[in-house]
């Protein structure tokens, strides 16, 4: 187990480094910059701003400065002219945000990530509970009316884009039956509609995976043995078959959770939620180099971490799968 995790950690460092490098140069290759605004700055002012953020340095130097606390400038990188220098990602400092100029990238992420985690967890719970129950029902009563309607619902859930679903939910539960606030972030009541909108496609996907997985498991020998031994159906399904039927769900949930926990631009826009999702798109549009890098690193770490977790859970669910090969 320890060896496995250490190996993973090494791979993680390598992956992160390549992602950071590619993202760094891609960001800077895009036309325009953080200081191009509609009301143009005088050239001298733009030059002053660029030098404050060291954008006038050669690219390799900017890259090294971004990566780590190397002393590069004649005035010293760490303690320059008081113009908000930063220590580099290796020391956990993602630098100042270009767009939210009163905040550092660390501030922006520290404020928005808990919101996204909160919403994401609620959405995940909704998705798992609804998805697994629906899948279970489908597998237990295959090809019946219930199965058919649930499968249709699942297909619809995958096919309907979340902004359409969000608008429908708002129309239904805000304007027709006014029980939820239309948008905003604060009380638990603000959580429900966005969590449902965010979780529905995942629930639908899980339902299909559970149905297929369980279907497969129920026709296997160990189930037949259990039935022959006179085990109650509840125990067979919940303890034995479901454990195997959930395997595909678990492997799907890793990356899906990373996506859900980091938020969604569309949902955050429609429900006015101060989460991380919008930063993924807006930081690139704003050429907020540092914030874009910050969210990229965050996402990479989450995907990698959750995938590792999935591999560990895998061996717990099915002891036949060795950890080393996962």
């Amino acid at each position, binding site marked *: 187990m320890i060896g496995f995790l250490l190996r993973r950690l090494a791979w993680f460092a390598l992956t992160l480094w390549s992602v950071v490098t590619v993202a760094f140069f891609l960001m800077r290759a895009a036309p325009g910059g953080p200081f191009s605004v509609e009301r143009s700055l005088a050239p001298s002012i733009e030059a002053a701003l660029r030098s404050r953020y060291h954008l006038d340095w050669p690219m390799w130097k900017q890259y090294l400065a971004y990566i780590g606390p190397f002393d590069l400038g004649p005035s010293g990188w760490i*303690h320059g002219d008081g113009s908000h220098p930063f220590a580099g990602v290796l020391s956990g400092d993602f630098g100042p945000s270009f767009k939210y100029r009163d905040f550092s990238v660390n501030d922006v992420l520290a404020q928005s990530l808990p919101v996204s985690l*909160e919403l994401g*967890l609620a959405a995940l719970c909704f998705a798992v509970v609804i998805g697994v129950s629906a899948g279970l029902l489908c597998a237990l009563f295959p090809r019946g009316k219930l199965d058919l309607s649930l499968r249709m619902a699942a297909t619809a859930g995958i096919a309907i884009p979340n902004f359409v679903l969000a608008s429908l939910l708002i129309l239904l539960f805000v304007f027709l039956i006014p029980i939820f*606030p239309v948008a905003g*972030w604060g009380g*638990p009541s603000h959580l429900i509609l966005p969590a449902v909108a965010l979780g529905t496609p995942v629930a639908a996907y899980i339902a299909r995976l559970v149905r297929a997985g369980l279907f497969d498991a129920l026709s296997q020998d160990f189930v037949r043995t259990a039935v022959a031994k006179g085990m109650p159906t509840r125990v067979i399904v919940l303890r034995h078959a479901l454990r195997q039927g959930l395997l595909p769900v678990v492997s799907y949930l890793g990356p899906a959770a990373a996506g859900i926990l980091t938020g969604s631009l569309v949902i955050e*826009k429609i429900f006015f939620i101060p989460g991380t999702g919008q930063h993924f798109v807006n930081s690139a549009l704003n050429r907020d180099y540092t914030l874009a890098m910050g969210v990229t690193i965050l996402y990479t770490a989450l995907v990698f971490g959750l995938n590792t977790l999935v591999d560990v859970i895998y061996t717990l669910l099915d002891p036949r799968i060795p950890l080393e090969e996962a």
Partner: protein
Amino acid sequence: MTLAGRARRWLWTAPAAVLLAGFAWAIAVAGRSHLPGADFTFNNNSEVSTLDPALVSSIPEGRILRALSEGLVIRDPETLAILPGAAATWETADEGRRWTFHLRPGMRWSNGNQLTVADFAFSFQRLLLPATASPYASFLFAVVGAKEYHAGRGAAGAASWNDVGIKTLDPLTLEFQLESPRPYFLHLLASTALLPVHMQSLQAMRQRFPDSWTTQWLRPENLVCNGPYTLASRRINDRIRLAKNPRYWDADNVAFESIDALAVEHGGTALNMYLTGGCDWIDGNVPPLYVNQMLGREDFRPKASPYLGLYFYRLNCTKPPLDDARVRKALAFTINREEVCEKLLKAGQEPCYTFVPWGKLGSYESPLAENASVPLARRLLGAAGYNKDHRVPPLSIHYNTAESHRDIAEVIAHTWNQTLGMQVGLANQEWKVWLDSQTRLDYQISRSSWIADYPDASSFLGVFTSDNPNNRTGWKNAAFDDLMARSEREADPEQRNLLLYKAERILQDEMPAIPIYSYVAQNVVNPRLGGFGNNPLNEQNPKFWYWKDDDELWQDRRKRVSSMRIVDAPGPTAGLYSKAARKARGS
């Protein structure tokens, strides 16, 4: 069963337990982070980029800054007339070249420090310092020596603050020495760039946080301000909470104890929030789809709210065929602006033929546009050497990705095709790419807009001087530059208007850009809100806001045209008035 086996048997339920625990946590945290509602909530359209007045550049920041700070003078929200702010009185001498301001005695910052002219002088010096890199340093360039100081050179070689014509005569008296009279100097002083910052706390923060003072001094716990409100809390992309500043000199005239400024970017969401009582004022952004439904409501009156904004097309005057003024004019003469305004925009925007929106601003009136017609446009094209056999090469309109820009460009391209037989393509670009190609003159026709910095015609005409970085058309005209420069120095308002008039004439004759329509302000505002001004800058001052009681609300409704649809006016039926107003009303 072994212990490991037993553990393994139950371990697989761990993820489920984690999920459930997470859910419980989510609900608990959601309950805790809830902020009780403010007395007044409005949508500020986007997250402010900074609260540093020297660096602020757009409208959302201005709304917050006007609550937090007060400059020497302020503007009346209804008429935009200059009112005393931190300065109680002022006088001008030497034909408008010398201005002396007298501060109110006994004013205090929110931390209790005395507010003196030293704070103002410090703030102005900071604005001009090259290291501040303020985009608005030019607002002080009328002051003797300011331009040189900003460029880092003074009379004796190195820049010296002593050479700049801003002098503190005593703790309450501040004097400006201008190079030439500026009729709009008071309006510049009322702008957000010239708001004061608290000298001591800025310097203390610099000492305490040498690495991060630029952000530290603006945090709610550190920001010291002199306006009607203080910064209570701030969450990115959510809200800024403002709390009444008890140390503000005119606190008795401030009604609301707390104000929330939301950062809703999505127009539909903002409107939904307004309609369900989630906020009391939203500005702009009413999705065109809903404009028809909203028109006629008493809380949405764009047609009565002209706004100093101009929608226009920049033309690249450096490349053929648009380097020929005749071609540019032919294009300008054939645009069907009425169709754009009435069929696409619908909210009362006016077709515009002048470079100053609405054709007039204060005492200035734009020259009447040439009587344009399609035959005239065709003749102009012919004179430029284009005819049936020798067609104008294909053109393309660049716009930043947005539905409304695309619709307008489609209509215009179609018109040019129908009337002049031109091939006009559309090219949409992501915002920064579009800005970049405009700056590099890598376009033929490019969608643009401009909003007044201060209510004066020069704010619009000045864009097209040769050295203005906002020109972005490649058009240079020495006669125009000369007229604009002379208008800057002219003291007599009538003479000055004449110079500006002549300058705009040249623009109309040369057409480096094509005006298309004038903006309207699209406020949707709770009818109960009092002190909300309908002015062409759409500039509001939170100091004046209050809730009307039912009596006052109905009196106001009676005064207005009766054809308007009465809508809900949520809020306290007994109103919410300032202490001074309550006294005056005898309650």
